[in-house]
């Protein structure tokens, strides 16, 4: 039968707009716009240069992790150790430099290697034991949390890194991880914002345009089928866990070099925020569907709501209530947009 060159009579017209709106991230984009507009109109400072600096900063570190976690989630796994990892790497660099006088660049490298090792361990455990990653990485999370607290305490006698800024060559990595571009009245765009954009761009490229991206979708969508058509399931999964760990390292460095300190409970409890952002950004919890840009927008929504509530001057005891209501609103809007797009003619 000849291939139908003309428009198929079984397809009613569909515009370019609905095609864009069908993407997983479309809903989150619209929700982000709505929230931005809302806070811009209702508060004075939100949309100023100074105001936007704060919520961009707050979103950026969460955003980097959310993007990595989104990749992993599309691949069908969770990483609950991601939050503790940010503290772990920061503490490691802090301890190695302030207490043992290691060269700061070497310390940064050591932290990266260790993070990757933990990531690989997560991946190998998940694949070899067949246990759900939720449980395996929860185990690593607990272990890391204990190591962060007890290890730091045992090595430096306190529970937070102190005196980081007096470490030799501190300023070199600080340029990379902790500096800021100033603009407007009192706006500053931190390095982490640029990292965030870069990570999102790379992740999107990988996901949409490379073989590995194709595999990630397949792993989450139907691991058995992926295996049957010859996707290297083991390597791809372990790689995903290592990616998340590397992102944890990056965020650890960003935190350490901006605030010049890390505490032993840094990042604990954040792992769910990352997952939330990924889901708000359109990722399926069950894997196989989602986007990196979406997760970045999810983080933006979270960051804007978090700071917007402060700008609005609402009683901050209710913070969590507002946050919950807004997140729910955002996902509802998100879902609604996507459904509309799918039903659109």
């Amino acid at each position, binding site marked *: 039968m000849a291939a139908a060159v003309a428009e198929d009579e079984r397809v009613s017209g569909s515009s370019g707009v609905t095609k864009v709106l069908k993407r997983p991230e479309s809903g989150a984009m619209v929700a982000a716009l709505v929230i931005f507009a809302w806070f811009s109109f209702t508060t004075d400072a939100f949309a100023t240069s*100074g105001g936007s600096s704060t919520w961009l900063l707050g979103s950026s570190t*969460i955003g980097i992790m959310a993007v990595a976690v989104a990749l992993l989630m599309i691949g069908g796994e969770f990483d609950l150790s991601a939050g503790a990892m940010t503290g772990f790497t920061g503490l490691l660099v802090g301890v190695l430099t302030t207490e043992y006088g290691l060269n700061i660049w070497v310390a940064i490298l050591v932290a990266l290697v260790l993070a990757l090792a933990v990531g690989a361990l997560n991946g190998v455990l998940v694949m070899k034991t067949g246990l759900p990653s939720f449980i395996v990485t929860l185990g690593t999370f607990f272990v890391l949390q204990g190591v962060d607290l007890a290890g730091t305490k045992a090595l430096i006698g*306190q529970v937070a890194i102190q*005196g980081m800024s007096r470490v030799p060559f501190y300023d070199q990595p600080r340029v990379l991880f902790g500096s800021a571009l100033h603009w407007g009245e009192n706006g500053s765009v931190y390095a982490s914002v640029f990292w965030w954009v870069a990570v999102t761009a790379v992740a999107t490229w990988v996901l949409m345009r490379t073989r590995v991206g194709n595999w990630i979708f397949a792993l989450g969508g139907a691991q058995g089928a992926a295996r049957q058509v010859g996707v290297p399931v083991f390597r791809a999964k372990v790689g995903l866990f290592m990616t998340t760990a590397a992102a944890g390292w990056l965020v650890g460095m*960003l935190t350490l070099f*901006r605030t010049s300190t890390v505490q032993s409970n840094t*990042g604990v409890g954040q792992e769910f925020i990352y997952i939330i952002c990924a889901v708000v950004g359109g990722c399926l919890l069950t894997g196989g569907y989602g986007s990196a840009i979406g997760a970045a927008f999810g983080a933006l929504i979270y960051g804007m709501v978090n700071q917007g509530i402060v700008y609005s*001057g609402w009683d901050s005891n209710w913070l969590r209530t507002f946050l919950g209501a807004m997140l729910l609103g955002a996902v509802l809007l998100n879902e609604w947009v996507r459904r509309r797009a799918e039903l659109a003619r």
Partner: protein
Amino acid sequence: ACSGTGKEEDASGTADSGFTYAVITHSGPGDAFWDRVKSGAEKAGKDYGATVEYNADPDPAKQAQLIDAAVASKSDGIVVSMANPDGLEESVKAAVAAGIPVVTINSGVDRSAEFGAITHIGQSESVAGEAVGERLKSEGLKKAICVIHEAGNVGLEERCKSSAGAFGAMENLQVDGTDDAAVQASVTSKLQADPDVDTVLTLGGQYAVDAVNAVGESGSDAKIATFDLSEDVVSNIEDGKILFAVDQQPYVQGFLGVTTLYLKSVNGNDVGGGQPINSGPAFVTKDNAAQVAEYAAKGTR
């Protein structure tokens, strides 16, 4: 038992006296203040050749279970902080009834004697809070925010509440204490949103450092005060970036708690004679910062 992870210069200690004391507080994991209480208790244990087992849980139900566990394992004494005395009443009374000496520390001073404790060491967060509030007021400050880094923590709420009581216009700001970027961003936002705020009160040394960054960034000239010390806080006080820090001397609370139990064990003493023993509060300002810097660096103040 592997107690005493703090760095100790004298590894020898005294000969093993064979006593085991349980220290049970309402701290969350990794809290810097309670870490110093722990250090003090462990140092005392080491000095007296006693085993100190430190455990903590912010949930009163679980804290009560920890007390029950200490009773079940026949401790020679229990040091307990009572942030929520109602929740611990039954367990503390049971411990006393089982003949185990109990010392309360930090909070719960007004119920301590009623439950049958030997004495109470340190003062409730409210005393420290009031002192901070008054001091801020005397500095001529008008409007403050109190940064709560753990939602619903009884001790933190108490600090803010009593500071506000003494100070006047003070508003709570809830932040996510496990994400320093978010803490800094939230404090900045608050300062931008409300330019009248001229005081930031934080409840932990770590968050004071975040607040210093935030104040710098927001272009505000708010003053910063904080509960608890750390090395960075002390250096910031010396630099004039932090007005003062209030030091409840947590190390003393832990150390004296165990000491009191030890004296009871070896000598039958009832330290305090039924009256509470104060451990502070002491203010660390630019004038005396240099004196505490050394100890803050060691993590004992």
